[in-house]
């Protein structure tokens, strides 16, 4: 019996992995996928197809919802010979990246592939993203204004 907590943890790991794949640059993901030499025998059930999503914001940042524009999104759904289905969604129009991401999503639900994918694809992608984020944060931090006050006279 799988407890509710365990199921939630599994879902959360999958959600996080899909987010890492969606945010990965296409070239990097394709390269890591090729290096990992995982089976590429999934059947495409849907797509990869590009469409639009309408982006939403909130008035004042936290108020009522409004639509403020659209973005291109590509999605794909694949099925492994074992029957496991994988999905992928990502901003942009990179169809090959999204098809591969869907295959990875399907494979990582299989216990025999989860560790390999974690080690050869997801960990390097997380590292890369964290490094890029940190570099940008540090560059931004260097433009922080350090106010100081000039005091004149004795009192």
């Amino acid at each position, binding site marked *: 019996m799988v407890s509710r907590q365990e199921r939630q943890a599994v879902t959360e790991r999958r959600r996080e992995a899909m987010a890492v794949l969606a945010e990965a640059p296409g070239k990097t993901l394709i390269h890591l996928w090729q290096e990992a030499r995982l089976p590429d025998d999934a059947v495409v059930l849907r797509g990869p197809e590009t469409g639009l999503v309408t982006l939403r914001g909130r008035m004042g940042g936290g108020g009522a919802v*409004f639509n403020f524009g659209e973005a291109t999104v590509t999605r794909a759904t694949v099925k492994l010979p074992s029957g496991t289905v994988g999905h992928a969604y990502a901003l942009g129009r990179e169809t090959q990246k999204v098809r591969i991401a869907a295959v990875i999503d399907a494979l990582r639900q299989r216990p025999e592939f989860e560790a390999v994918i974690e080690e050869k694809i997801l960990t390097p992608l997380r590292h890369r993203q964290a490094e890029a984020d940190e570099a940008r944060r540090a560059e931004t931090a260097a433009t922080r204004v350090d106010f100081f006050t000039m005091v004149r006279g004795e009192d």
Partner: protein
Amino acid sequence: MYVAVKGGEAAIRNAHRLLADRRRGDRSVPALTLEQIAGQLSLAVDRVMAEGSLYDTGLAALAVKQARGDMIEAIFLLRAYRTTLPRFGYTRPVDTAAMRVERRVSATYKDLPGGQLLGPTFDYTHRLLDPELAEDQDPAVPEARAADDEAMPRVSDILAHEGLIEEDGSLPEDREPGDITREPPEFPMQRDLRLQALSRGDEGFLLALGYSTQRGFGRNHPFAGEIRIGAVEVEIDVPELDFPVTLGRIRVTECQMVNQFKGSMKVPPQFTRGYGLVFGQSERKAMAMALCDRALRAAELGEDITAPAQDEEFVISHCDNVQATGFVEHLKLPHYVDFQAELGLVRQMRREYEERRRAGDEATTSREAAE
């Protein structure tokens, strides 16, 4: 009335061929790549995305190239392209408080939590042309500094504690957010629809209207409470998965305008607010949007509507530069038959006028003769 007239095919074909050649420019100079446009003219690309209302840097860069740098033409191209795509749905609202901030300034609080981060700004430059940029020189690598993990709350949340500022805007709970791309505009219009129209409205038009409020046409005493630029995560709920799917990140600019308000019959004295949220690094546009948003809330706040920036039908109906350019530029297309008809009408009116005048002259002459 429209009548098909044949004969322009060869001229049109050759004109488009000539356009392609002129767009390419001197062929001994390397052609621009989309990476160069997206990377080095990134604010132009941002503007095309914002007013084209489609977030896709590659397509926006292509549009800028195809339009020879004509921004409104590029925006038009992007708008036309988006109509060819199927729609997958609406995202969850982006959380700008969780933004990966690249710039963040406040004109109202010097020492706000998270600090003032100037980022890659034109502010404080001397606006002197830099001859070095005419050469292909590598700029210095940016300075880096260890960043602390201080939270960066929105300025509006800081002021909210005192109760002297109105809350983030609300609409009825059960209201499904309106979508101007799906339903024809009706006035009076709810604020969600206005914000959508403003977010993709023409920067120049909104800038001029915002400026007009500062000059006294619907004055609303603004302060730039906060401007922040950075990446926000986009999530969507899809039927096949029981958790929100992350689509990736987009860069947006958010402006919280804080406006002094002396109160009205409806509302006690307090700070009111205008809001701007725009694709890309689009600071001027986000500020102009926030000024216009506030001005357009005049009726809601019980203010007199006296100025163009407060007139929602005027502002919303004219802020879309694709609609505006379509209607203005159609004037140069053949109107030969229309004009022939008008010419006939004017000739007839002129004939009647001359006849009336002659008749008047004769009447005057005969009256004078009688006297």
